[in-house]
Structures are given as C-alpha cells and as structure tokens.
C-alpha cells in the first residue's frame, strides 16, 4: 500500500513537473479503444486519474478500435488526423507502422523504466514491443465450457476435448475466422504448441488442421461479435465456447454465469497503444503514454478487467478486483498456473498467410 502511494506520488510529481512549463489551456484528447468493459477499465485505471492530475485535460473515448487500421488510413489520406491515441492489435499496428501512418517509438526514451530501474525494453514481456507498438495487456482466447452440460465426473479439461464430440457432446461456439481455430485443431491433433505455425505454413499442415475441424463441423455455431460467445453459453445454446478471457471473466465472476475456463492451449496475444502520425496533440500524448504504461498503471488496469499487464514488473503489484474484491492473479492469462501450454499468436505468420487461410476458411464454412 505504501509503495503504491509513493509511486502515485512520484509519478504525479513527475507529470506536474513535466507539464508545468506548458500553458494550461484546456485540451481534449480523443482516445480510440474497444468500448464496453475494456474501455471502462482504461477509463478507471488511466484516463480518470490522468485527468485528475492534469485538470486542463479532458479525454474523450471513441469505440473505433475494431476498424482502427481502416480509420487510421482514412484519416492519414484525408490529411485530417483527429485521433490522438489508438488501441489496436499488434498485427494491424505493424501494417500501419510499415505504411508510416503511426509514430515509431524509442522504447527506452519514451517509456518509463521499471521501479527497480530495469529499462522498458527489458521490462515489457519478450517480443511484445513493436516498432510503433506499446503493449498494455496480454489477453488470450480461451476455451470455456458449461459444467452443467457434462456429467460431474467427466468434465472437459483440454483443447483435445473440444474435438471429442463422442465423449463431450453438445454444440461448440467458435469465432468465424481461421485464427485460433486452426491452431487448436493442430494442437488437438498432437502438434506441440511451439511447432504449430511451422506446421501450418505447409499445405499438408493446413489440410491436417481442416481435417481435424471437419470432425466437429456439424456441431459448430460461429460467432462474430465478442459479446456473442458468453451469451451463447449463458443461454445454454452451446456446451463449449471460445472467447476472450476478459469477457469470460466478466461473465463468470461479475454476471455469475455458470461456466469454467480451460487454460490449456490458450492463444495469447498483446493489445496496446499506437500514436497516429500528425496527431493534434502529440507532445501531450507522449506525456500520457509515459505515465499510463508505467508499472503501476498497467497493474491497476487488472483491477478492473482480467487481462494480464504487459510488464513483468507489474505482475507483482496486481491486486484485487476493484469491485469484487477477489484476487486477480489467478485470473491473469500470465499466471504460471494458467500459462502451462500457451500458444503465442504469431502475427507475422498471419500477415503472410492470413489472406490465403481466410479464403480457405470461408470456403470451408460454405461447404
């Protein structure tokens, strides 16, 4: 508690110092994110405290992240950039970075070091930082099931069980895209998590994945929007559903849905910030970023949503859920108990093979 107070004190002093030179004219920042519980967690962990420290700043939320790349391109082409900061996926961030429409980040200069002095580039989880991308959270796509759908002594426990309709009958709600589904098909077919993308890069590997998917095809309901998966589970429409772990946490712990998460084979990905080039308030945004991605702030977000902080140093300071009062550590994808067989999403792979595999997947859905 005392460490935390000290940290807030330190950082607030830092930001007050940083901003004292600037004229205190009212400024409004437009921050683009995913909406819903996720934006709410950012509001409470980052935006509200930042506005308290900097009374002249107001932050407006824009729920445009689902089409962030299209939006960034459109604004850059029109020469009228209105977004200050955008929350997006690293794969799209890399494309935007290649196109030069978002700023490159000098990690150690622009981001706060860990409290013990470890530079940012070493504190953020390995491979998470991008040329233009600053991760906030680790989220994962997990398999969830309804315990009531199976006998008490034969509950599913692994991804392999998703593909076992004989012992685990019932419908499965999967996302209508190849990502995650193909990885799991190979994993369930016995491929080691570390080798999955190597196998999937070969035509034989792709055939193998689709063949595995074929075995459950008649039992699948595809979902499109993130909110559909927990809904289908709650309504008893399906026995299994894939979904983002944050939403599933919300549905289970907050809404009281009767479901359990299988952490086996969780597909792990980052999500984080990018700064549009030629944005209206780049300097202020950089102040915000330095503060909002420090160790304590990232740990704070976990109080409001069950996504893991992207800094190693944050793991130790993750506390309890702000409203529920439960320990958040066991619900983090990065918790060692959960992180036993993760599949780390390979964005380069999807950038290269996504077009082709999406076509193949669409074709498979049509058959």
């Amino acid at each position, binding site marked *: 508690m005392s460490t935390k107070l000290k940290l807030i004190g330190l950082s607030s002093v830092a930001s007050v110092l940083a901003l004292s030179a600037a004229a205190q004219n009212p400024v409004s920042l437009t921050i683009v994110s995913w909406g819903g519980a996720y934006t709410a967690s950012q509001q409470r962990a980052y935006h509200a405290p930042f506005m308290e420290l900097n009374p002249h700043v107001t932050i407006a939320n824009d729920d445009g992240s*689902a*089409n962030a*790349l*299209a939006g960034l*391109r459109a604004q*850059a082409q029109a020469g009228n950039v209105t977004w200050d900061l955008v929350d997006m996926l690293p794969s799209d961030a890399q*494309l935007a970075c*290649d*196109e*030069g*429409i978002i700023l*490159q980040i000098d990690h150690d200069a622009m981001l706060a070091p860990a409290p013990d002095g470890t530079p940012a580039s070493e504190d953020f989880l390995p491979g998470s930082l991008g040329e233009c991308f600053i991760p906030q959270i680790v989220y994962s796509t997990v398999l969830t099931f309804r315990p009531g759908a199976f006998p008490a002594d034969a509950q599913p426990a692994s991804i392999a069980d998703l593909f076992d309709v004989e012992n685990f009958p019932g419908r499965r709600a999967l996302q*209508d895209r190849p990502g995650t589904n193909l990885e799991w098909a190979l994993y369930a077919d016995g491929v080691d998590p570390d080798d999955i993308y190597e196998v999937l*890069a070969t035509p034989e590997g792709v055939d193998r994945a*689709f063949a595995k998917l074929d075995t459950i095809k008649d039992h*699948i*309901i*595809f979902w*499109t*929007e993130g909110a*559909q998966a927990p*809904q289908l589970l709650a*309504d*008893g*429409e399906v026995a299994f559903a894939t979904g983002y772990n944050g939403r599933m946490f919300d549905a289970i712990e907050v809404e009281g849905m009767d479901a359990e998460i299988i952490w086996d084979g969780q597909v792990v990905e980052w999500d984080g910030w990018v700064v549009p*080039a030629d944005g209206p308030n780049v300097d202020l945004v950089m102040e915000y970023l330095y503060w909002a991605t420090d160790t304590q702030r990232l740990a704070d977000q976990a109080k409001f949503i069950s996504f893991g902080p992207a800094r190693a140093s944050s793991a130790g300071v993750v506390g309890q859920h702000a409203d529920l009062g439960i320990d958040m550590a066991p619900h983090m994808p990065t918790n060692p108990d959960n992180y036993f067989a993760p599949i780390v999403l390979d964005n*380069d792979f999807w*950038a*290269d*093979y*996504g*077009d*082709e595999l*999406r*076509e*193949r997947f*669409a*074709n*498979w*859905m*049509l058959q």
Partner: protein
Amino acid sequence: MAMADATAQTGSATDSRGRLLTSDGTPLRRALERANRRRKLTAFALVSPLLAFILIFFAFPILQMMWRSVDNPQIVNALPRTLDELRDWDGRAVPPERVFVALHADIMDDLERPRREQRIGPLGVRLNYELSAARSAISRTARDVPNFEAPFREAFTDAHRLWGQPELWRVIQREGRPLTLSYYIAALDREYDEFGNIVKRDENRRIYVSLFGRTLALRLVITGMTFLLGFPIAYYLSSLPMRYANLLMIAVLLPFWTSLLVRTSAWIVLLQQQGVINNTLVGLGVIDDAGRFSLIYNQTGTIIAMTHILLPFMVLPLYSVMRTIPPSYVRAAKSLGATPWTAFRRVYFPQTLPGIGAGGVLVFIISIGYYITPALVGGQSGRMISNEIARHIQQSLNWGLAAALGSMLLVGVLVLYWLYNRLVGADSLKLG
C-alpha cells in the same frame, strides 16, 4: 370580316426563307427557343443542388470504388527499375543478377524517402494478395538491404526463400502495371497459373461464385417471404378506414424504429434452441427435447430476420397500390358472375402487380446491403456476399477485392433491374 382578315395576315407572315415570323418580325422558332431556354435554366437551377449532392456523395464514391477495383499503383511505384529489367524475362528460372541489382537500387531509393512516403509497405501488402508470405519477403529483406553486398542475387535469396522462386517474380512482372484485373479474377474464384493463363482456383479456396449464387437464392427466398406475409397485411390495411390503417401501419413499420441490437436480441431470445418458440413447442409436447428446431445461426435465422426487417418495404408499395384500386372492380367482377376467388385472381391481383414489382425490387435490392444481421443470426450457412465485402473493407483491408466484389454486385443488380424492366416495365413500378 375585317378582323378575320387581319388575323390571317399576321398569322402567315414569313421571312424571305419562308420561315414563320412573330408579329415583331423575329423568326418564330428563335422566339420559341428563347422562351424555352429561360424555362430550362430555371428548371436546371432548381435541380442543381440535388444533382450536385448526388454527384458528390453518390456517383463519385461509386466511381471511386470502381476505380479502386482496377487501380494497381503499388508495384509500378515501388519497383520501376526492377520492372524495366524484368521486361524480357521469360518467367521460367530465377531472374539474372541485373534484376536483383535493380531491385536493390529500388529498395535503397525507397529507404531514402520519408517514412510516410515509403512504398515498400504497400508493396508487401499488395504482393501478399497474390502470393502468401510475399509481405514478409519484402519487409524482412528491406531492413537488411543497406548491408547487402554483391552479388545481390545470393543476398536476396538468402534473406528470404521467396526471392529464389520464379513465382514471386512472375507476380511482380504480371502485376507491374498501373491497372489490373487480378481483383476481378480473384472475385471470380480464378487465378493465374505459371504460364499466365487464368484458371480456376483450388477447390478449397473457391468462395465468391458460390456465395454470389447463395446470396441470389437467399434473397429470392426473402423477397418471396415478404410477399407471402406482406400481401395479406397490405390487402387488409387497404380495406380499412384510413385512421385504423395508419395505426396498424405503425405496427408494420415498427422494425424500422427498433435498434439493430434490440431486434437481434429479441430474435435470439425467440429463436434459439433454448428460446421461447422451442420451449413452447416442447412444453406443448409438439416436439421432444432432443428434437428442438434450429431456427437461428443458420439460413433459417437469416431468412426470418431479414424478412422481418424488409417486410415494410414490401407492404408500403403494395398498400399504396391497393389503396388506389377502387372496390368497384371486384364488385364489377362479381356482378359479372365471378366467384370471389376468381374476382380476386383475375381482376384484383393483376392490378396489384405494379406494387408487387416495386416491393420485390425494393426488398431484393435493399437486402443486398445487409450484412450485420446475417452475421449475427445467420451462422455459417446464412452468410451472404455482403458479409465478405464488409470483411474485406474492415478487417482484411483488401479494398481492391472488396471494390471488385462490390462492382460485380452493382452490375448484377443493374442487370437484374434491366431484366425486370424488359419483362415487366419499370414505368409500372409504383412506390406509393
């Protein structure tokens, strides 16, 4: 008599060339033109704001979309020298060293440019549409290019395997021109083979043609459903006094005023396997628990939802046409000895055809644009071509392909409209 003579004289006044003149001597034709020009100018002035609006916000974006479906600047802009050197390449073996020298020079040039203007990023994205992994071949190589030393051929092929494969070079050579048909070829489930012929894609990558077919079939079913449900309602409404009809019309229009999410949630609650309809049927003993109907997350869901939303577009033109059919026609038919059914079939129904045509065309065309509803309630089998277009616009960001699909859809609709016009006559459309 005097009056009549005077009139005859003025009326027949002509000039030397025999043209009719007005009373002040100007040729009649010119006077008429002058009078008409003024009227035309006024008419144009009245129409021009809307015309400008339509041009700017409707015609221009459509043309822009069609342009995007053939626009192909990425390779030409990024690799001018390479394309020069590739001109005589036969497309068989890996190109010679001079091509790699040109490639090296093109990339070095590009790295000199400010980041926003670099052409390597879009190039990688563009090539990846044609050949998987081409994007990383470009982006990974580009970082190391400044350290490359001759011979460049080895340097490039070491950096990424694709540089050593003629396939990538064939794509660069083929698509190295400012306009392309490749998006249309992809949209027709076709591709180029190694000899440059257009062939069908692998069976497991064909999507669009069958999706177009399914979209057409689904829309016909939806149009048919709105007709079957809408006709009796419109008939009943048209027979009611105006104030009751207006009241009931509100009920028909209700779907317009309900937000998509509310509507979708309602359908889910009603239609899902544990939903109201299935529970009721199980409760009544009509079906047993294992035999619950799948009414949502499949084509049935799409048909039910779309029929519901689009029903007003069928009811409104039908209603307005039926309102104008006086009851005396059916009475006349009956007085002539026709049974009520014959009177309806041979006298009333044919007169509603303009309304049916208008409603059908409206529902059919509007249904093309719907993609959110099918995505939410249609599962895998209830998806339509519009879902693919939306996906390419929003997620895969392959706007060229989206534009090609959109243009094909647009042309398809125009062809159908033309057919309708030929068969029924567009002038018989009555929209109310």
